[in-house]
Structure formats: structure tokens, C-alpha cells
């Protein structure tokens, strides 16, 4: 139990996906203009991360390791993640249209989000158990959502702020991201 908690905390804060591992930077800047869309993106990513780490754990342990073809991790994981995202999209579209529209364009975009491939490869490298992989995925997703929400909150304020004209928009967002990253370095080594 303690170990799982350490994995969770490590994924949320110490090895945060965006600010420490630098994975999933595209939605970090692309979808962080408004708090609402940032949170929906974060929830969608967390969900896909959890499902795909479950699926890839099963595939790795029941197909790849017995057949001794672990070197094909990446290509098979990409295949599986793309399939999962498509299935989830189809499923949501057919069962809950409201949810489908609130996810909007973000759901198919997750296919190419490197944070999702990242969590499956991290699980593989660290050789987590099934529960460990799930906890790591949930923690990673939560950390992703947390940083996205923080960034979008700051950017919403920045829109109002009196920034110099040449710094408006992305330049000031990059600087903000750098400061946020510095803040997260402070978490390193607390476990």
C-alpha cells in the first residue's frame, strides 16, 4: 500500500508528466487557454491513460513476454492506444452524446499525445504490477490535469494583465511555464 502511494505521489508531483518529464507539451500550450477545456482535456487524458496502461500491461504480460518479443513494445503500444481511443470515441458517441460533445475534438487528439505512450513505456521500464500500473496512470493523469488547470488559470489572468505587446500570448505563456517548472523542481527528492 505504501509503495503504491509513493508511486502515486511521485507521478503527480515529483515526476510530473508535463513540468518534469516534458511529456504532453502540445496540449499544455494548445488547450490551456480556458479552465473548462483544460479540465475536460485532463480528464480525457487520465481516462485514456488508465485504460491503455491496463491494456498494455495485459498484452505485455500475456503476449509479448511469453513470446520474447519485448523489443516491439513501442509499435504495439501505439497500435493499442490508437485502437483504444477509437473505441472509446465510438462508444461515447453512441451512448452519451452530451459527453461526446463536451470532449469535442480533444478525444481523437489524445491518440497522438505522448503522455499516453509515455505512461505505458514508464510502466514497462519500471516493471510495475497491474495495480502499480493503474495507480501510476491515474497519478500521471492527475498530475497532467493539475498542471493544465494551473496553467489555464494563470493564462486566463494573463489575458487581463497589462503585458507588454510583444510578450502577449505565447511568449508570456512560455515564461510562465518555465517558472512553473522551476517551482516543481522543488518537489524533487521529497520521497
Amino acid at each position: 500500500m505504501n509503495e503504491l502511494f509513493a508511486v502515486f505521489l511521485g507521478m503527480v508531483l515529483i515526476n510530473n508528466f508535463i513540468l518534469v518529464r516534458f511529456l504532453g507539451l502540445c496540449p499544455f500550450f494548445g488547450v490551456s487557454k480556458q479552465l473548462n477545456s483544460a479540465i475536460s482535456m485532463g480528464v480525457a487524458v487520465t481516462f485514456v491513460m488508465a485504460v491503455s496502461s491496463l491494456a498494455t500491461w495485459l498484452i505485455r504480460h500475456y503476449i509479448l513476454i511469453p513470446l520474447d518479443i519485448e523489443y516491439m513494445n513501442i509499435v504495439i503500444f501505439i497500435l493499442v492506444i490508437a485502437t483504444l481511443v477509437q473505441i472509446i470515441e465510438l462508444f461515447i458517441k453512441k451512448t452519451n452524446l452530451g459527453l461526446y460533445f463536451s470532449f469535442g475534438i480533444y478525444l481523437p487528439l489524445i491518440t497522438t499525445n505522448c503522455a499516453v505512450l509515455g505512461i505505458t513505456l514508464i510502466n514497462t521500464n519500471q516493471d510495475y504490477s497491474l495495480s502499480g500500473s493503474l495507480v501510476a496512470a491515474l497519478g500521471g493523469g492527475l498530475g497532467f490535469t493539475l498542471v493544465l488547470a494551473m496553467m489555464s488559470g494563470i493564462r486566463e489572468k494573463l489575458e487581463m494583465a497589462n503585458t507588454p505587446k510583444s510578450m502577449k500570448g505565447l511568449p508570456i505563456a512560455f515564461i510562465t511555464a518555465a517558472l512553473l517548472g522551476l517551482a516543481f523542481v522543488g518537489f524533487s527528492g521529497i520521497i
Partner: protein
Amino acid sequence: MPIGILAAIGLACGLIIYLVYIKVPQKVKGLEKTEEITSILPGMNCGACGYPGCFAYAQALSQDPELITKTPCSQVLQDPDSLARLEKALGCKLDAAALCKKALVHCGGNSEVVCNYSGAPTCKAAAQLLRGYKKCPYACLGLGDCVEICPQGAIAIDPEKGIAVVNPDKCTGCGLCVTECPQELIELVPAGTKIGFLCNYKPLKNIPGRERCDYGCIHCRKCFKACEFEAIDWNKETALPEFNQEKCTLCLKCVTECPQSTLADFTKLGREKEAELVAAE
């Protein structure tokens, strides 16, 4: 062997998607119309209508067919065939000529150049330095950001005046130049517009425009008085003329009467310029 496994997993994934597609029951009704509309729309997801994509636009249209008059899809309006299909799908009559919009650059281009700009040759860069290098801070800078973005190649730079001119024959009214222009000079006007107003400052209070630009509207009301057909209304709030396209007979009296030559015949504006430019080349 590994290739076989990869292929097998790929096939299995495809099969699962197919199974999910046919097995999961279609519980949600009401998407049929959206899908019908989506098949008519161009599917370019250009976003000019203000929705994130053609599917979202179709969804909005299926709920409120009136929307097509407010934010029409400029691509569909160009194509009579798909327009007819859309009319059928929405169950309402569409007048393409009334909905169709054209871009108009609200600048006459007589503002003096007051300094020598040698920076990056884009309007965006130039506009950040004290709103450009012309006397009027609202003037068209003529560095061609709109020319670059126009997918139809409908915009050209008039080398004499250094402003952008739009050829209404080529313009589809997609509105990409409207968002691109850093001076916010370009506006989509109805395609049937007869008189173009070539000046960009609107609020009457705190206008730095008049004393800085030699070409702008001086609010003399001469056009308003000259019109014999009551086609021009004088907006007291903004102190600018408003044109009634139905009453206008295109007698061009207001154009000749305007002391600042702020008015121009919109039906000829872009086409003549384009012909001149082609001849010059």
C-alpha cells in the same frame, strides 16, 4: 514471426473496432440530420463559421436552421449544387446572393508614410511598433499578411497606394483575412454592397484619426445631403454614413461629392485595381 504477431494484433484491433461499431446499439436519436448536413458541408474544418469543425457546425444547424443566415458556411454558398441540397436538408429557403459576403479593406491608402520601416516585412511586426509607419494609426500597411493567408489569391497589394485590395470575384468571404489583419481593417460586407466606405475609425470620441490622416472621413455629411434616393442614413452615434443597398441606385453622386474620396464604388473597387495590376505586370 514478430511481423506475424504485429499483423495479428493489428487485425485484431481493427476487428474489435468493427465489432464495437456494429454491436454497440445506436441509442442516441437525432444524429441522422446532423450526419446528413455534415455530408453536404465541405468537410475542410476551416473554422470560418465560428465552430470548431464542420460536424459541430452541422450539429448547431440541425438544432437551429436559422443559424445559416447568421453564420453561413462560405464554401457552401459558392456551390449552387450543395446549396440546393442544404436547403432541402434544412427545409428553408436560402438566398445565396444575400448571404454571400465579400471582404472589404476599410482603407483608402492616402495616409503619408512618416518613417522608414526596415524590419520584418509583415504587417504584424510593423503594427507592433507604434501601430505602423503611416501617419494614420489605422491605415493599411500593405505588407501583405492578408495576401499570404488568402486561400483564393483574391487579395493584391496596390503598389501606388500601398494598400491591399480585394477582388470580389475571387473572394469567397471565408473571413481568414479579417482575423489575420493586425490593424483590424478588413470587414465582411454583403456581396450586394454598392458603396464601399474606405476608412476605419469608428468611435467619434477620442479620434486621433482625423488629424493624423489626410484621407479619412471628416464627418461633413456631404454624402448624406447629396443622395437623392434617401439611400444614406446618418448615424449620429458614430457620425458615419450608413448605406441602404436596396434604395441605392449606384448613381455615384456621394462618391463624387465626398471631399476626402473616402467613398468608392464597391462593385468596381477590386476588379479595376486587379485589372490595372495585371496590365502593369
